C-alpha cells in the first residue's frame, strides 16, 4: 500500500508539472481531454478489469452526466456544481436500479444488454429535441466557477480536470487494494468460490457498476462545462468502444494502464489526422493486435517484450516466464 501511495504521489507530481513543458494551447487542450478519458477509462477498468463485467454502454452514463449538467445549467440556470451533483446522483441511482437485473446476465448477454442501454440513451438524446436540442446539440453551458474564479482557460481546466482525474485514480487504487478489490478479483475468477466465502457477488457487482457509472457521469459534467457545447455524437456507441480499447490497450486491471490507454488513444488521432473517419477501424485493429500479442496490455506487455528482446540479444533466446 505504501508503494501504491508513492506511485500515486509521483504520478500527481508529473501531472502537475506537465503544463510547464507544454507550449501552445492546443496540446494543453488535448491533455484536458486525456484527463476526462482517464476518468472514464478508470471507471470502466474497475468494472471490466477487476470485476470482469463488461459494459458497452459506458458512453450512456458519460452522456447522461453531461446532459444533466448541460440542461440544468444552460436551460434552467442552476449552479454548475449543484447540477453536477444532481447528475452524478441521478446516474448513480439509475445504475444501481438497472444494475440488479442487468448484472444477473453474464458474458455475451451482459454485453448485449449494456450495448442496448447505450443505444437507447443515445436515441433519447437525439429525439428529445425540446430538452436536449436533439442532433444539433445544446450550447450556452457555462464554465465552472469557484467564487469569482472562472475555469475559462485551458490551463485552468487542465488543473480542474486532472484534479478530478487524480481523485478518481486515488479512489480506484484504494478500492482495488482493499478487501473489496480482492473480492472483485475473486468474482472475476470464480463466482462460486467467491460466494462460498461469503461475498455477496451480485450486490458487489451492482455496487461497482454504480461507482463506475457515477465516475463516468462526473466526467460527463466536466466535459460539458469545459467544452460548453454538447451533442449526442460525443456519447455514441463509438465512444463506448473507444473506452473499451483504452482499457484493453492499457491493460485490464491496471489503473495506470488506463491512464496510458486514455493518453494514447486521445493523442494518436490528434497526431495522425489522416485517420479521421477511419479511426474506428484503427481501434478495431488495435484491439485485435493487442489481445493477440499483448493480452496483458501495454503496462505488462512492454516490460515483457523488453525482457524477451534482451534475452534474444544475449543470444540465449530462452523463454521468458510471466
Amino acid at each position, binding site marked *: 500500500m505504501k508503494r501504491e501511495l508513492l506511485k500515486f504521489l509521483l504520478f500527481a507530481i508529473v501531472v502537475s508539472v506537465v503544463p510547464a513543458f507544454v507550449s501552445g494551447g492546443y496540446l494543453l487542450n488535448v491533455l484536458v481531454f486525456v484527463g476526462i478519458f482517464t476518468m472514464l477509462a478508470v471507471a470502466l477498468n474497475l468494472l471490466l478489469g477487476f470485476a470482469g463485467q463488461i459494459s458497452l454502454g459506458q458512453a450512456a452514463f458519460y452522456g447522461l452526466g453531461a446532459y444533466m449538467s448541460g440542461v440544468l445549467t444552460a436551460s434552467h440556470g442552476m449552479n454548475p456544481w449543484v447540477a453536477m451533483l444532481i447528475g452524478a446522483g441521478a446516474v448513480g441511482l439509475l445504475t444501481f436500479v438497472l444494475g440488479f437485473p442487468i448484472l444477473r446476465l453474464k458474458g455475451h448477454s451482459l454485453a448485449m444488454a449494456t450495448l442496448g442501454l447505450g443505444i437507447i440513451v443515445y436515441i433519447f438524446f437525439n429525439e428529445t429535441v425540446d430538452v436536449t436540442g436533439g442532433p444539433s446539440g445544446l450550447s450556452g453551458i457555462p464554465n465552472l466557477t469557484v467564487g469569482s474564479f472562472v475555469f475559462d482557460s485551458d490551463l485552468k481546466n487542465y488543473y480542474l480536470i486532472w484534479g478530478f482525474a487524480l481523485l478518481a485514480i486515488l479512489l480506484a487504487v484504494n478500492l482495488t487494494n482493499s*478487501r473489496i478489490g*480482492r*473480492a472483485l*478479483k*475473486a468474482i472475476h*475468477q*470464480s463466482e*462460486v*468460490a*467467491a*460466494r*462460498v*466465502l*461469503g*461475498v*455477496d457477488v451480485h450486490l458487489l457487482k451492482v455496487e461497482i457498476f454504480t461507482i463506475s457509472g457515477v465516475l463516468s457521469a462526473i466526467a460527463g459534467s466536466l466535459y460539458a462545462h469545459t467544452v460548453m457545447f454538447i451533442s449526442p455524437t460525443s456519447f455514441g456507441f463509438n465512444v463506448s468502444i473507444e473506452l473499451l480499447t483504452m482499457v484493453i490497450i492499457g491493460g485490464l486491471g491496471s489503473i495506470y494502464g488506463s491512464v496510458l490507454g486514455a493518453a494514447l488513444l486521445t493523442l494518436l488521432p490528434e497526431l495522425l489526422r489522416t485517420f479521421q473517419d477511419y479511426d474506428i477501424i484503427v481501434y478495431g485493429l488495435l484491439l485485435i493486435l493487442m489481445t493477440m500479442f499483448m493480452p496483458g496490455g501495454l503496462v505488462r506487455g512492454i516490460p515483457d517484450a523488453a525482457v524477451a528482446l534482451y534475452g534474444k540479444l544475449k543470444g540465449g533466446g530462452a523463454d521468458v516466464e510471466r
Partner: protein
Amino acid sequence: MLRVKNINTYYGKVHALKNVSLHLNRGEIVALIGANGAGKTTVLNSISALTPPASGEVLFENEPLGVMGADKVVRLGISQVPEGRQIFKPLSVEDNLELGAYLRYRGREGKDAIRKDLEGIYELFPRLLERKRQIAGTLSGGEQQMLAIGRALMARPKLMLLDEPSMGLAPLVVQEIFRVIETLRAEQGTTILLVEQNAKAALKIADRGYVLETGKIILEEKATELLNNREVQRAYLGKDKKEIWER
C-alpha cells in the same frame, strides 16, 4: 447442529434431490458417499444456499437457512470448500487466504485476530507459508487443495462442507489432506461434512456415513459398519461380488 429435513432441489426441471434428510452432531465427521451424479455436491450446495432447495428445511443451530443468501450462511459459521478447489489462480496465496476472512474485516474482532488466524493456517500447512507471495495458480494440486481448505478456515467456520478434497490428487497427498481433516476436528472441534468419491478413505476417518443414490439417501450407518456392509463394499469400495462371496 445441522439438520436437513426432507429437502428437494431442482436444476430447472431436473429433480436432483428427493426428500433428502440428514443431520450432523457437533464435532462429528460425517461422510456422504455415492456414485457420480448421485447429488452429493447438490446436497452441499443446498446447505450453503448456492442452490437453495425448493422445499424442505435446513436448520443450523436451530436457525433455518432456507431463505438466506449464500453470504449469510457463511456469516453463521458454515464454510464450503467447493468442488475442484476453485482457488483464485492469479492472486497470491496470502490474498487467497485473506479473501477467506472477507466477512470478518467488518466485524469487531479487528485485523489482529485475522492475522493470528493466518499464522494458524501457516502452522497447519507450512508449505503455504513458504509460498505465501507466490501466485496461487502455480501451486501443485495438493497445495491448491490445502489452500482451498485454509481459505475456508479463515472464516472460522463451525461447520465445514468439504467437496471431494481428494479429487485428482496422488494417494500420498490424499493421506496428508485427510490427516489435516482429522487434526481440524481434534484441535478446533470443527464439525465436518465430507463428500467423497474415495469412499474408503472418507469412511476411515468419518464417524458416520450416508449413502446417496440418484438423489435419495438409501443408507445411514456408522462408518465402520458401512465399511463392512457388503452392498457398500460392492458398489463403492471396489470389491467385486466374487471376492466378497468366496471369502
